[in-house]
């Protein structure tokens, strides 16, 4: 009995927090999404499906998000895996900590400042100017999907590197000797042993980056210049500029649904793929 009381008391703060900060707002958003826009903006009670019927007008935001979030995740993975592999397996153990710190260092500066740096780099005075000086023409970089992708990969890379690094570092190196001993050349040992055993890290990294990217709005706003925008940007616009809260709520609900569907599909897929005991875990 006392044990139960203690458990209840210990769980109470988390329960209250989740109810107040997650469940309640979510209920509010769902309720709003069926409402109508008040004449001066905001919400007026109603029950209509009109907001959901209008979702098509924001299709471009969904399209961009659903293209660039997976693309950004994939690009992060392609860059992070070799880096994590190098850090965990090839790097001199004495240098490893230093190199890991170098991977985190960008995190110590606000993403806002780092994105400004990218605006300058990709803008007229940056890389395009360098290209022009070299006589290679003057490519347009800023305010393109490329710029958004570059920003995304730059910002989210550490989130991908660390889970993969951990799973590779935990890998028993004797398994690679066993694989070689049984006649497998190094590249096949990588495919048959290292890669499958690092899948839990890959799955965790992809999940972290993908979920955060689905809600991203800062990087597209700064590097996409209003031309490449995410659902997040549409939400900012609807809630803060046009003050159409019910429509914004409908877009938010749609985003949550899309996210749930994709993440569920993804988890099913990776679990089958990894086949290992380790469940896909979110840190």
């Amino acid at each position: 009995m006392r044990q139960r009381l203690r458990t209840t008391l210990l769980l109470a703060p988390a329960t209250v927090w989740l109810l107040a900060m997650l469940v309640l707002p979510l209920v509010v958003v769902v309720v709003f999404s069926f409402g109508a826009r008040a004449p001066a903006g905001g919400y007026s009670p109603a029950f209509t499906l009109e907001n959901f019927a209008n979702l098509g007008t924001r299709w471009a935001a969904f399209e961009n998000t659903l293209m660039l979030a997976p693309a950004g995740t994939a690009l992060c993975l392609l860059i992070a895996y070799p880096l994590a592999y190098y850090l965990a397996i090839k790097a001199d153990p004495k240098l490893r900590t230093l190199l890991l710190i170098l991977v985190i260092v960008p995190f110590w500066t606000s993403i806002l400042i780092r994105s400004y740096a990218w605006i300058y780099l990709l803008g007229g005075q940056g890389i395009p100017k360098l290209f022009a000086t070299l006589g290679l023409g003057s490519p347009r970089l800023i305010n393109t999907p490329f710029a958004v992708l570059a920003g995304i990969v730059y910002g989210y890379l550490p989130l991908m590197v660390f889970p993969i690094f951990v799973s590779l570092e935990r890998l028993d190196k004797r398994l690679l000797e066993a694989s070689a001993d049984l006649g497998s050349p190094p590249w096949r040992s990588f495919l048959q042993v290292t890669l499958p055993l690092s899948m839990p890290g890959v799955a965790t990294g992809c999940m972290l980056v993908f979920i955060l990217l689905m809600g991203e709005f800062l990087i597209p706003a700064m590097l996409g210049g209003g031309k490449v925008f995410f659902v997040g940007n549409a939400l900012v616009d609807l809630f803060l500029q046009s003050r159409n809260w019910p429509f914004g709520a409908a877009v938010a609900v749609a985003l949550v649904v899309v996210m749930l569907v994709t993440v569920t599909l993804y988890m099913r897929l990776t679990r089958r793929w990894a086949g290992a005991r380790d469940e896909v875990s979110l840190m």
Partner: protein
Amino acid sequence: MADETETPIAELRGATKRFGAVVAARDMHLTIRRGEFLSFLGPSGCGKTTALRMLAGFEVPTEGEILLDDQRVNDLPPHRRPVNMVFQHYALFPHLTVADNIAYGLRQRRPRPPEAEVGAAVAKALETVRLPGYGPRRIWEMSGGQQQRVALARAIINEPKLLLLDEPMAALDKKLRHDMQIELQTLQRTLGITFILVTHDQEEALSMSDRICIMRDGQIVQVGSPRDLYDRPKNRYVADFVGKSNFFEGTVRAVEGGSARLDCAGGTVVVGHAGDGVMAGQSAIASLRPEQITLSRGDEGVPVTVVNRIFLGEHTEYLVRNPDLGQFLILASRQAEAGEGNFEPGETGRARWRDGAALILKND
């Protein structure tokens, strides 16, 4: 059994391995006979694992040569050597089933053998290690002993020229270890594959091997059958490592016709077979096995006091003490005790041995 007339299956020719300033293996010369059960025996850091890893291809010798079937394989990477290993902690693949672990080696072959063939071979290997039907299980569902069998099956399915076993029994409890030793020996006889076992357990090496290679500080000290090593150890180190032995220090008085006479403290004289390099006038040791000494109540022999007595069933082991020679062990058979009777701790008696029973060895 090993056939000495055939060409050796493998050879170390002056194999040396340095890690920086550390010499892990120094000028090792060893001929491995086709089909034999050979053990590398020695304490940790003696070079036995390094020698094994050079045969497997995980270490490239700094100097010297490794030969497999008369071919120099120094530069052949592990995945191209027809040699398989049972790793110390088995190193089974946790993401694969038992069957997929065992099939791993066959599936690396190019051209890849048909799956039906692989499946049949896996079933047969599981049968051989007495785990029939365990194929679909996961590795973590298997006990330590079962995992070892899986590791064994994963290696023997490839029919390697050499099967290398790196302290495979270390993680097993005593009872299981004993069962596994017998099983491994039987398996080796049936398969006819050359086994090389690395161990620091002298009993294990003595009971299982056709030959034992004793190592120390990266060097091979002596190679021979368990009986050779027991009866004719080259020096004190081997005599001490293989079986129990008593050592009496002294000065060599004379060497004649392969026999030496050693004068020990207190006027005790030991006459025995002279080992390599024993010369008159030098200090040496006499090695006497506990079963070569008898304890009696007569007047002849070295006077001793019984310190302790351990009943071992068929034998009784006495720890006795002589003021000059110190403490030593005597193993009395039941038969001998029937004549002389029991000795109680504190009792005095005489320790005797046959002339020529002892070995006079260089003290190193």
